[in-house]
């Protein structure tokens, strides 16, 4: 099999203030993959990606990009890498076009090579009209797209996006998804992204790793993860408000609002059974929808499980010390 686009082994990071942000990360991302790195705030996503693109100094561990060890030849590895960081990191007082052209120059691309590439990317990302304006005058969503254009100038084989759609409206987000899908499929660019929108991971990514408290807690395919979901929550809107939720043997029903119920269905259970009991009790369901996103529920439960485990460990430690 081809070298993985990214391979991380035993990666740890202790920041200058003594905080351990990564506790031994192992991760492989295969060439051509569309990979999601998920985790709550402060989990260590940006730290991991920061190590990969040399913005963060690792403490221990090995990182290879297309088989190139970053400790041996980081410059060569960097050619394969395009980075869209979480926070805006361009000079706000420079012109849009100058920013992308300068970045190409840092990779050794002459202006003559860079100019057509810049035009194409800025057009694709809807920024060509703004090319002569200061970056400071772009909207938040435009600034993100500027960073994407900048990252793609030197045609990287691995694109890393740290929360690329944060603060981007739904319509624009969908067009950005379309764009990312295109460069993944048409150009074979491997993409790794972090996000807090699980819908984004579900609709874009093939594989997924979940990180919490500096550890990978899950690393699998999105499909497999979804198949594991054995419960699903539905929201039922009733014609009339009820004073308390109905009790139905074997089903978990809670009241969300006076005329709204939340119903948890386990695998193998029949929605029909619920409906028949409800209508017997004189409650009419006018509409029904899936609660939130399925992946989201799984994610929340996984992170909570992780937090509980940590609380328990802390308790055990306390007991041990007592």
């Amino acid at each position, binding site marked *: 099999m081809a070298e993985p686009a990214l391979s991380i082994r035993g990666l740890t990071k202790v920041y200058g203030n003594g905080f351990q942000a990564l506790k031994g990360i192992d991760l492989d991302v295969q060439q051509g993959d569309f990979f999601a790195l998920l985790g709550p705030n402060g989990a260590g996503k940006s730290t991991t990606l920061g190590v990969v693109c040399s913005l963060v100094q690792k403490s221990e561990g090995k990182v290879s990009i297309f088989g190139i060890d970053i400790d041996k030849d980081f410059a060569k590895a*960097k050619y394969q890498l395009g980075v869209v960081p979480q926070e805006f*990191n361009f000079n706000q007082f420079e012109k849009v076009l100058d920013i992308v052209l300068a970045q190409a120059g840092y990779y050794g691309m002459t202006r003559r090579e860079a100019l057509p590439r810049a035009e194409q990317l800025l057009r694709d990302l809807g920024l060509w009209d703004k090319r002569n304006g200061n970056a400071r005058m772009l909207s938040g969503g435009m600034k993100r797209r500027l960073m994407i254009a900048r990252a793609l100038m030197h045609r990287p084989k691995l694109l890393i996006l740290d929360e690329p759609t944060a603060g981007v409206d739904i319509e624009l987000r969908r067009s950005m998804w379309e764009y990312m899908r295109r460069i993944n499929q048409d150009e074979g660019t491997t993409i790794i992204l972090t996000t807090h929108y699980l819908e984004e991971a579900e609709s874009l990514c093939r594989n997924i790793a979940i990180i919490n408290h500096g550890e990978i807690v899950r690393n699998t395919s999105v499909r497999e993860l979804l198949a594991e979901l054995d419960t699903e929550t539905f929201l039922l809107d009733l014609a009339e408000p009820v004073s308390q939720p109905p009790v139905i043997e074997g089903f978990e029903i809670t009241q969300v609002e006076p005329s709204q119920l939340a119903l948890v269905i386990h695998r193998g259970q029949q929605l029909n059974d619920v409906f028949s009991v409800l209508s017997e009790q004189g409650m009419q369901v006018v509409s029904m929808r899936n609660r939130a996103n399925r992946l989201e529920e799984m994610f929340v439960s996984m992170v909570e499980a992780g937090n509980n485990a940590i609380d328990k460990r802390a308790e055990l430690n306390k007991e041990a010390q007592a």
Partner: protein
Amino acid sequence: MNATQTLVALWTLVLKEIKRFTRIWPQTLLPPSITMAMYFIIFGNLIGSRIGDMDGFSYMDFIVPGLIMMSVITNSYSNVASSFFSNKFQRSVEELMVSPMPNWVILSGFILGGMARGLGVGLIVTIVSLFFTRLTVEHPLLTVLVVVLTSALFSLGGFINALMANKFDDISIVPTFILTPLTYLGGVFYSISMLPNFWQGVSMLNPILYMVNVFRYGFLGVSDIPVGWALTAIFAFIIVLFFVALTMLERGKGIRS
């Protein structure tokens, strides 16, 4: 990176630095020209005529080299200090860090940018001085050499300052409390032979004195100190500071957590 790519990267960075200070010329190029014109009028013309000769030259001719050098020093230093620090502050330094550019290219790019501003302002001040006096240059090659080396040295100083700085105040401390006093006391306005022995000795510890004197020697052919020795010292300082800056960059001091 191959040689061509390295050159392209270096040139990109230098050009960007030059663009930066020319874009904000009212902050970078204009003020030194005005200040120096004031010095020429007040010290050179008005007061200078009463002071009489200094080391056998008219006071105006004596201070011109020193004032040019003073502007080269401050402008080289502050260009690199503020440009690199604002790159840190705006995080655009990350653009450089994620690229395959070697650290020596990054460093050289900023240093050459600082030299472009320092020498550019030096040239403007020289031109302004021509309105007040007729400049003669005794040793043109030496004059150019020493001003270029001095500019490189202080650009390096500004770079190290910016790497260590955490806030904007940190890049004005050195210019205000070290560079300015050392320059004023570095024989820009007087010959140290006017000083009592003890203060002459103290002045000899001031590195800027050597640069000003060698530069003046290039113009006028007279110097308070041995020229060859001073040149060697400046050169040695450049080498040392270059490697200090490069090592700090290599370790990610102030830019990589």
